[in-house]
């Protein structure tokens, strides 16, 4: 039985769990804001140091999530302000403004992405293969069928099955908590 996160946040196990679950998506979130992948990782690692110092103060996972996204957002904005005059704006990086709701779009992306990613990893093997070929390699159905030695119909069925799994795994309560924080 899974240990209750409530008891574990202040223990080493809880900290490791939170890190491994949220690190990649927070890096994606920071990357969408600052446009620099290494800087994004540095920012997120520093935020986890802050979280480590504060880990006793959280009662549940949603409040941890809110804290992480909020501080990564603020740190990303600070990074942009202090960066050298010559800033490279990639297609994904946002122009600066101090709208309170800023970062919300990126957050929605990061959360939806992370949940989809998690769900894909948990799909049954045959299903996951089809999804990976379709998404990661961008193959069309007939090419997938060729590669795996199955029929095109089976490919379509596996895709439907994957969508069924994904539909029930996406968690919307995350959006509510973070929206509230960002709009206070």
């Amino acid at each position, binding site marked *: *039985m*899974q240990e209750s996160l409530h008891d574990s946040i202040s223990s080493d196990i809880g900290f*490791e769990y939170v890190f491994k679950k949220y*690190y990649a998506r927070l890096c994606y979130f920071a990357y969408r804001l600052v446009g620099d992948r290494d800087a994004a990782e540095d920012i997120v690692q520093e935020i986890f140091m802050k979280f*480590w110092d504060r880990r006793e103060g959280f009662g549940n996972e949603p409040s941890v999530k809110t804290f992480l996204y909020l501080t990564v957002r603020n740190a990303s904005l600070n990074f942009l302000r202090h960066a050298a005059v010559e800033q490279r704006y990639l297609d994904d990086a946002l122009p600066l403004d101090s709208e309170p709701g800023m970062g919300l779009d990126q957050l929605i992306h990061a959360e939806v992405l992370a949940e*989809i*990613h998690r769900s894909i990893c948990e799909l049954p093997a045959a299903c996951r293969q089809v999804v990976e070929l379709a998404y990661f390699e961008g193959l069309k159905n007939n090419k997938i069928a060729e590669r795996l030695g199955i029929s095109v119909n089976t490919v379509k069925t596996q895709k439907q099955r994957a969508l069924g799994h994904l539909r029930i795994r996406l968690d919307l309560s995350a959006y509510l908590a973070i929206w509230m924080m960002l709009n206070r």
Partner: protein
Amino acid sequence: MDTIDTYSYQARLIIRHLNGDLTEKERTELEAWMASDDRHRRVFEELTRGEWLKEGLQFLESIPVEDAWQKVAARTVQRVPELPERKRRIGWWAVAAAIAASLFFSIQYFREDPVPVLKTAERISPGADKATLTLADGSVMELEALSADDIIIQGGVRVINLSGKLMYTGVAKNGEIAYNTIRTPPGGQYQLQLSDGTSVWLNASSSLRFPTTFNGDARTVELTGEGYFEVRHDPSKTFTVKLAFGPQLTVQGTSFNINAYPDEPFVRATLLDGKISVGQNGVVKVLVPGQQARWSDREGLIVADDADTDQAIAWKNGQFVFKSMDIRSIMRQISRWYDVEVAYSGAIGSDLFSGIVSRQSSLEQVLKILEEGGVRFRIEGRRITVFEK
């Protein structure tokens, strides 16, 4: 202006669009939302662009989480713990420097990042999907902390917790029967699907004790507070709801609402569909849809024909529906959903109120509407005092 409701609802629509699930009505709503603000359209277009998903997933896959963990672990969990104070001799200058450093740090921190505040006294928000689950071995889990995670219970019964709904599937091995109890606090609500497919919605300050799997000829659960049931039809197994006090209800494949709060004057069972029998002390009444059984210690069991089913199940549909209701009955519902105390000052008339309000409204909004009916409120922290103008 976006509210929490609309944004979350739109997010849901976008996901349904991605799954190819939108109804015509929903499609129109989604398009209207997108047309109302450029930012909305941008969010939608990004989310539905296949490229975004592919690039995003590739990005996630390429992040070296394990390496990053090693780096962070070295600076955190693997650090040698500090020696306890009494074993060190610290000069006064070191103490002063330490205090100055921590003050500096906390000032920096407060300036840049708002301290997360779990409870704010100024703003009383409506209830939410919150509950605890007590397993057969006595351990208690907070359901909101386990979003979208599986809980495997001993004995082969699998429980899934997703966004406010707890679902039981599977069959217990060796015919073991384990009982679980789900409890909602004031300001909480939750939905539950039992192993036979029966759905139960629990209102605030309520509980349901139930077996993880149904063996034998009967399905029996115990309810306190308020629950709305959609019972899966199974002619071979009657479904019984036991209450802590008052009548017992036996049902077959039906939809009904039971309101059994200890501070309400009556226990009320309202039947929407199907058939239920309500029994107390050997007296049994059978209800047809649209009827309501009321029970009180004083008057025993009465069946009323004119039940207002909308009012009875409004809570499950996310609304308060008041039809000629007195203020005290209304305030009892308010106190359970907003987790506030209610007191009365002076004489309050017996005026009746009618109205429909969303349960997602803030407390201030609901009280404002009630003030139009001639009462006034004073709010101090989580205590509301009601008085007449």
